[in-house]
């Protein structure tokens, strides 16, 4: 069975990738909302926000990127849910294939689709005046953290994708994830927030990830939050993966 894991996963990933390329609107809508937010924050609110640093768009782009991923993974849950409903999931499960390949195909597709959406959003930001001092190494680090973050959130998305009983339920989980950056250092410095809110903002995963990305994009080496950010991403990834696999096993036994 394991010998076929790679070829089976490749065949199944080819299938789910076609679902994305045949409805490119899923990538567009994933990118449109963050771009609209970016326009609003830069051209409407931005003038009134004093971050004490350079251009506002440089300040808020990392948060926008995380929102992009959070809204992109809703489609992963949706596609998985559709497979569960339609009977094709059972067809695959009754075939002599590496069974977890079905899940990995969705995860890899999610990764590719989100990377494309992220590239579109970064392209829009460049048009709006975003500039970075980051070298090739720092950009690689940014990409690596975003990939890790996408993987972590995708495995979270697998859980409702497998267990939801309605389409709405399958994608509703992403709303709090999209909202989380607003309660972080993504758009305003946390120093301006009242006590308990500030405490939450400074201790939730988004702040450390945003700070790290911001530092890397400004030409730094990740700053003091780098390890906290990596620990959060890895921790969420491991926990979500374990939970998703447990849900999956309960579903197929």
């Amino acid at each position, binding site marked *: 069975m394991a010998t076929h894991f790679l*070829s089976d996963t490749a*065949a199944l990933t080819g299938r789910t990738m076609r679902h994305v390329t045949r409805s490119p609107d899923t990538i567009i809508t994933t990118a449109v909302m963050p771009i609209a937010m970016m326009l609003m924050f830069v051209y409407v609110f931005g003038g009134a926000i004093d971050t004490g640093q350079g251009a506002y768009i440089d300040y808020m782009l990392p948060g926008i990127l995380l929102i992009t991923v959070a809204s992109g993974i809703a489609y992963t849950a949706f596609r998985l849910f559709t497979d569960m409903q339609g*009977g094709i999931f*059972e*067809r695959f499960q009754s075939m002599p294939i590496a069974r977890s390949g079905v899940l990995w195909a969705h995860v890899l597709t999610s990764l590719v689709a989100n990377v494309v959406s992220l590239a579109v959003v970064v392209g829009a930001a460049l048009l709006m005046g975003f500039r970075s001092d980051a070298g090739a190494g720092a950009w690689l680090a940014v990409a690596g953290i975003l990939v890790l973050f996408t993987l972590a959130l995708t495995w979270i998305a697998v859980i409702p994708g497998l267990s939801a009983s309605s389409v709405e339920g399958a994608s509703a989980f992403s709303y709090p994830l999209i909202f989380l950056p607003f309660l972080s250092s993504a758009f305003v410095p946390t120093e301006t927030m009242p006590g308990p809110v500030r405490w939450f903002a400074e201790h939730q995963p988004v702040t450390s990830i945003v700070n790290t990305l911001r530092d890397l994009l400004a030409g730094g080496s990740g700053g003091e939050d780098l390890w906290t950010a990596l620990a959060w991403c890895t921790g969420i990834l491991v926990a979500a993966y374990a939970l998703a696999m447990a849900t999956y096993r309960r579903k197929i036994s």
Partner: protein
Amino acid sequence: MNEKNPPAIRLRGLEKSYKDLRVLCGIDLDVERGGVFALLGSNGAGKTTLVRILSTLLRADAGTATVNGFDVAGRAARVRESISLTGQFAAVDEILSGRENLVLVARLRHVADPGAVADDLLARFSLTGAGARRASTYSGGMRRRLDIAMSLIGNPPVVFLDEPTTGLDPQARVEVWEAVKGLADNGTTVLLTTQYLEEAEQLADRIAILHEGRIIVDGTLEELKRLLPPAEVEYVEKQPTLEEIFFAVTGGSERGRPARRTAPSEK
């Protein structure tokens, strides 16, 4: 029972409950190799539950089940190599074309030259013309035929067809019946579940009736007929069935544009 040629399916004391609801209450059944075996039962009789256990999607609470000589619980991977499942809902990928669906399954079954296998099956199931179209544009009958075609890739010795004609119009039902007969002619063992008595009569070499979680009869159609008192000869004027009328006015099973006919008005 000799080990070299185990029955296609063997069930002993199979039980399954969902919470308090007992669905299967001790099923004993042997299905010999080759031919079509119909499992007949009304809605909720447990047919689908039984098929799901046999295709390793569900675990039984008690009893044993072997398919192609392999225990479904202990040797699930070997069972999956021996079977193919066509469930109640046509399990085709709607976004892929018919041909892409077949190629995908062929790749997952690791057959040589998936493209050629796909083209061959499209031809066998009269889908060549529609092969490049997305499956979402197919009619119910075409979708079912594609579904069954997908089940044949890799020539699994045992095929489960779970209510393959539920929800189909009479025309599509006949198309599916033809496909099933073709399967049995190739030596595949087909376990067919159905709630249509006529379907079992048309297709099955042997019939078992599943009722309230038990197999209550099991035999050939002739044997089942002997359960009733011998038929008395009566002369009855043969009235056409509605089905015969339907096929007569729509042009039978030939596809094409049916000639419009008007019923003669009574004088």
